[in-house]
């Protein structure tokens, strides 16, 4: 009774991926991968996703700590706000970023007038769009790890005279490291696949803002085979991430 829908579900999930592999232009694959535009998009994607992840770690880990360890009024509301980008359609996120950080945006106007900085249509804009969409993944993952960690170790360290920063650095962080790493990997994967917020906020120009997903989308309009090749690269990256997360994901109780 349950096996049939289960198999149907499996086929439904696996078949499209198989389709991608079957339709791939294998004989010319390497040639297509070595095309300058492909390498450029791949390089840009990897750089932007990595910098975005670094930004998320820098801001997201303290934010997760705040949510897990500090009792303040409105904490539940703050947690809900943090997860909004997780469920928000990325295009909406891009529009929101444009309205705040765009040239005529609330903050963007001031940035341009004071520092002469404009963010839309720059690589920095791509990183901001990706970090905006990906940070909740990191925060949720790290907050979960913090809640699961035994707080008595931190208390013991504090009674021995360690400052808040020392406790965090020497006791808390080593304890939650697996959670931070898993969160960072997810965050990176989400940033790598980001499309909607990027094309809305950062636009699309080869070398500065055209990341892999944007290249896939544009290639599909004129050269479906190139889109398949680019998709395969992203698929390979996802599989590698899945494999690297396997231990934590599959063996978790």
């Amino acid at each position, binding site marked *: 009774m349950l096996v049939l829908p289960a198999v149907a579900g499996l086929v439904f*999930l696996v078949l*499209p*991926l198989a*389709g*991608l592999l079957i*339709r*791939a232009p294998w004989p010319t694959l390497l040639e297509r991968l070595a095309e300058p535009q492909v390498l450029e998009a791949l390089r840009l994607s990897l750089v932007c996703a990595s910098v975005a992840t670094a930004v998320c770690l820098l801001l997201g880990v303290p934010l997760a700590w705040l949510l897990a360890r500090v009792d303040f009024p409105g904490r539940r509301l703050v947690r809900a706000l943090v997860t909004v980008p997780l469920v928000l359609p990325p295009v909406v996120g891009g529009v929101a970023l*444009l309205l705040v950080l*765009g*040239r*005529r945006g609330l903050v963007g106007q001031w940035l341009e007038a004071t520092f002469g900085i*404009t963010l*839309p*249509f720059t690589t920095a804009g791509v990183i901001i769009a990706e970090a905006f969409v990906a940070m909740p*993944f990191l925060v*949720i*993952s790290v*907050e*979960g*790890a913090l*809640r*699961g960690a035994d707080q008595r170790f931190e208390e013991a360290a504090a009674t021995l005279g360690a400052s808040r920063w020392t406790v965090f650095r020497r006791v808390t962080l080593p304890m939650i490291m697996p*959670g931070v790493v*898993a969160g960072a990997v*997810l965050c990176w*994967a*989400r940033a790598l*696949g980001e*499309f909607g917020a990027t*094309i809305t906020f*950062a*636009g*699309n*120009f080869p070398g500065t*803002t055209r990341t892999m997903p944007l290249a*896939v*989308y*544009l290639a*599909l*309009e*004129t050269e*479906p085979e190139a*889109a*398949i090749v680019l*998709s395969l690269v*992203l*698929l390979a990256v*996802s599989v590698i*991430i*899945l494999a690297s*997360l396997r231990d*934590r*994901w599959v063996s*978790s*109780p």
Partner: protein
Amino acid sequence: MAVRRLSRWAIALPVALALAGLSGCGSGEPAASTTSASAGGAKEVTVFAAASLTGTFTELGKAFEAAHPGTTVRFNFGSSATLAQQIVQGAPADVFAAASPATMKTVTDAALAGSPATFVRNKLQIAVPADNPAKVAELEDLTDAKVKVALCAEQVPCGAAAVKALDAAGAKVTPVTLEQDVKATLTKVELGEVDAALVYKTDVIASAGKVTGIDFPEADRAINDYPIATLAKAPAGEAARRFVDLVLSQQGKDVLTRAGFEAPDQR
């Protein structure tokens, strides 16, 4: 425990999403065309039209519905290149109105449409925000590195026309972004994120004062013909042909020329 579960969910969800997102590309199975009944009763005409036709075709659709009670017209507006690709992949459309012969050719080459008829022509204009912050007055001004310019991607008709016009003028413009359709390009001007863009004259008119259009002589060298055709497998059949007839009729011409399109016979 609840927290544990959440963190696991947080891992499973994006992985599933990532794979789902990836699998969206490349599979070429045609979708079943079940838009409407093939004969009699309530009918539905599905029209795939270039983004630049959004305003005029919506108006014509309402006129068509008024003239044919019981029939509804549904539109899918987007870049002609995307729409052509969707039709080739089996999207259930009845009528295709493209912004360039090249994108229409994608569909006719796949033997999916009858012989297309050119129903209008469209010309590019320089669009600048209403306050024109970069003081753009002519095409030459766009070559200034300080002027932020948005163009359509070369794959879509307005982008192809822009390249042609810029080549004709011998102007070297480095845009900050290549947008996926003409409406997206215009939006960047409306929001003031760019100082100028090359879009169709009709889009400038449709934006109703939010942007200013500037004519330039080289636009005459990059005029886009708009072809329209009923699709070979049109589920709506006769109703699809009647919609095309309306577009080609005097009433259709009036609506289109009022929006700034040029009739195909005058050049």
